[in-house]
């Protein structure tokens, strides 16, 4: 009996020891990476621009959750009092240094995991190149590779402080605009991951969208009625994505307007929507508008006596959505004609992009080099050494095949019958 009790006492001692070890292991490591949500300075957008003396200035958009929560609830103090975000700016030799300088002025630790947009100033991109600043974004584990990269025209602080709907931040607004990119397909945009990939490629050069601030045409010159208290009139300026910035290696070399940007997207097979205008086959000067449904692109390179020929095959489908011309859509031949016109319009867009990129910028943003690499791997080994010289000389043949799928609820536009 005594032996049994002794053994029991020992086992209980050992049990306590185990529990003690467990308890210490769980509590004494001090939860080193524990952060409560409300203590985070959630960053939604980061801007990088050039500062004097080769330094960089960063601007981070920090949200103010309580202000956002309140205005979402509808109650509490009126939304005008609390700004839903704060922008913080710091300069430094490197981004990280500037980043830590921000901690001198903010009570919360910056949290980049929800950063949705990186805006790089056009000035920095053109003069200094973005290689140096990219390192931070690539290295930092908090930054996602799905973050959008855009080029900002003008002062970034102004871009990121454009008032809009109260409960949203400019960052969220830009993000939402980008999410709707397929409604227009008029700019090419890259995520951080894509951008870095292109940057590291042996033939490709990166591109991404440009954001700018323009005067708001919706703002009336003069308000007839005075706005009641608390209502905010239309803002002066709006944020707008305008065209595509083209890079040569890490330096921005030029800009494609919306039409040329669409041409770039056609070649890359990234057009998923948007509108196309063609003139009516029967009445000159009247426009027929088509909505792009989907498209597919195939690049087919050929090499003839050192001459590179690239065939771009585009297949597109669209709906007819609006017509100013009187056309009878019950007739298949009209549809055929429209399809042909449509193909012409697409070819025009593609060629405008080709001209500008090949002749002016000389940067292969289309992926021609990659395609040649895939199809002529042996020749490519020679070609890649002077691809930048070869690229402007590539002859491009554009083949477009289009289909009009539907014509909406009516076949014949309404026509006044009275004489």
């Amino acid at each position, binding site marked *: 009996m005594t032996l*049994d009790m002794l*053994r*029991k006492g020992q*086992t209980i001692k*050992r*049990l306590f020891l*185990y529990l003690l070890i467990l308890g210490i292991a*769980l*509590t004494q*490591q001090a*939860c080193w*990476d*524990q*952060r*409560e*949500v*409300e203590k*985070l300075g*959630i960053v*939604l957008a980061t801007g990088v621009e050039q500062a004097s003396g080769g330094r960089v200035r960063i601007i981070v958009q920090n*949200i103010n*959750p*309580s202000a*956002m*929560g*309140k205005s*979402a609830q509808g109650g509490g103090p009126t939304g005008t009092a609390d700004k839903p975000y704060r922008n913080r700016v710091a300069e430094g030799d490197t981004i990280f240094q500037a980043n830590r300088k921000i901690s001198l002025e903010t009570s919360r630790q910056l*949290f980049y*995991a*929800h950063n*949705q947009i990186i805006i790089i100033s056009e000035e920095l991109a053109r003069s200094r190149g973005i290689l140096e600043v990219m390192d931070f974004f690539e290295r930092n584990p*908090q930054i*996602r590779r799905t973050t959008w990269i855009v080029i900002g025209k003008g002062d970034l602080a102004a871009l990121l402080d454009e008032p809009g709907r109260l409960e949203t931040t400019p960052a969220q607004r830009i993000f939402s605009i980008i999410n709707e990119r397929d409604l227009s397909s008029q700019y090419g945009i890259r995520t951080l991951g894509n951008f870095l990939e292109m940057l590291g490629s042996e033939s490709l050069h990166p591109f991404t969208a440009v954001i700018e601030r323009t005067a708001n045409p919706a703002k009336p010159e003069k308000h007839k009625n005075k706005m009641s208290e608390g209502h905010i009139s239309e803002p002066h300026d709006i944020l707008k994505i305008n065209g595509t910035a083209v890079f040569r290696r890490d330096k921005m070399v030029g800009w494609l307007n919306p039409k040329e940007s669409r041409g770039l997207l056609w070649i890359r097979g990234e057009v998923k929507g948007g509108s196309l205008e063609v003139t009516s086959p029967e009445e000159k000067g009247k426009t027929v508008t088509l909505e792009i449904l989907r498209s597919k692109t195939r690049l087919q390179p050929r090499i003839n006596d050192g001459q590179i020929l690239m065939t771009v095959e585009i297949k597109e489908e669209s709906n007819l959505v609006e017509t100013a011309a009187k056309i009878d859509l019950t007739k298949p031949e009209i549809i055929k004609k429209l399809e042909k016109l449509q193909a012409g319009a697409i070819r025009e867009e593609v060629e405008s992009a080709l001209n500008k990129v090949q002749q002016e910028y000389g940067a292969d943003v289309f992926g021609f080099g990659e395609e040649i690499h895939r199809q002529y791997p042996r020749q490519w080994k020679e070609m890649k050494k002077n691809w930048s010289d070869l690229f402007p000389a590539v002859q491009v043949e554009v083949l477009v095949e289009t289909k009009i799928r539907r014509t909406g609820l009516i076949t014949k536009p309404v026509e006044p019958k009275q004489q």
Partner: protein
Amino acid sequence: MASRLLKKIMPKYPRRKPALTTGENKAKPNENPGINTKDVLEKAPISTDLDVNLEFLKKILGINSDVIFRQFQVTIDFTRAAVIYVDGLADKNIINDNILKPLMLEYRMAGFNQNGGNLSDRVKNIGASASDAKEARTMEQLVAGILYGDVALIIDGQETALMFSIKGWPSRGISEPQSEVLVRGPREGFTEDLRTNTTMIRRKLRSPNLVFEDLSIGRVTSTAVLIAYIKGTADPQMVGEVKARLQKIDIDGVLESGYLEEFIEDNPYSPFPQILHTERPDRVAALLLEGRVAVVTDGTPFVLLAPAEFIAFMQSPEDYNERYIISTSIRWLRYIAFGISLLLPSLYIAITTFHQEMIPTRLLISLAAAREGVPFPALVEALAMEFTFEALREAGIRLPRAVGQAVSIVGALVIGQAAVQAGVVSPLMVIVVAITGISSFMNTSFSIALAMRLLRFPIMLLAGTLGLFGVMVGVLAILIHLAGLRSFGVPYLASLAPLHAGDLKDVAVRAPWWAMDKRPTETGKQNPTRQSPGQKPSAPEPGRNKR
């Protein structure tokens, strides 16, 4: 996990003390005369002298006011006799009409004289007309019978006494089971009366193969315990094991089947139930048909069923009554709720304090807004809220019904409204705790829900210290523990680990009845075929019913 640890620490410590022998029993001082008399009784035969017998019985039972000794004379030869019974346990009307009346008044009519044999046999065969009559040879049998509602008839000059089983005590009527309510299914539930309970099982399984084996457990209570199984379907080894484990029990009283459960389960340190208990006769019948063994205990409506693997606790009897498609979806809902009730608060804590990058941006913002001004870290907040919820739940059960409702209203207001408005807890935490609570109510088995309630807390602590890694550690520890458990030798995760693909028809889905031709592998080894295959119904072929 704890049991594993304990097992490792105390490998040599005997799990269960060996059954005490009678020798030890004697050595123990015992004030209760009822127990002391056991040894006296065991050796005492029934004397041929009525007076000796009566004196003996009076010494043992006579101090009780509810024991009735009635002396009379069998009228034919005026032999003296006596009936002894406990007032209230035996049915007085039957004693009067079927024992006393024939023996005292109606002898002559029955031609009692012409028959040979001794008086006892003659009384048994011709005299008393009560149906259930046995002969008792020892005082022990006699006393045990009297205390269980039998009537003892002792006749002067006879070596055996007669026992008539005419139990007739007041008991609760059959009512709907409180702890397992079904929408579609039988409404009857077990009562506290053993006989009523066996009747209900017997009525569902009208087969000579349904066997009830008697046991009596409890030094003082001598509680009647029955082992029920279907011969030919239940594994005889399993039946033997259940019986052996029950027979080893030496306890002074068995007031509920839970007492037995703890003595016969395989892993006493586990929080998980390894024996299923139910109030529903239909569930018992269904599980007996699967080849399991039931233990019916007198005095409680809860019948034990063994072996019970994890999946058995997830199956509701209603699954089999409702249409199989719906039952399958509901079963999945239950599995999900099971996971939620174990993990949701921990996941919330882990993600909000360690893995904010996993939360969608908009949710993170509203989360941050909701937590703005909450003074406690998420872990403390969650622990406090869960504690409050569990306290409310327990209070609601224990309090008298009328007060219980008031408590839940106050609780809902306190938790839902006041705490959030005061800024002590965040509204999201209230939602998390509420969903967890609702999910834990979805478990069909209360005992497994209890295990979840308990295990939730250590996992919350792990989540609060180690994040999702901690949650994973907790889940794995539970899984490893579950994989090591056994219920009467059957692996606790049976059908899943070890995998019996054929059994998944009643695990992953609830297959239609015409597709469940085989019994579960682990319990139905003895008799695997449940029904003939190919009974899928279909519409009559076109043209066959043409007029």
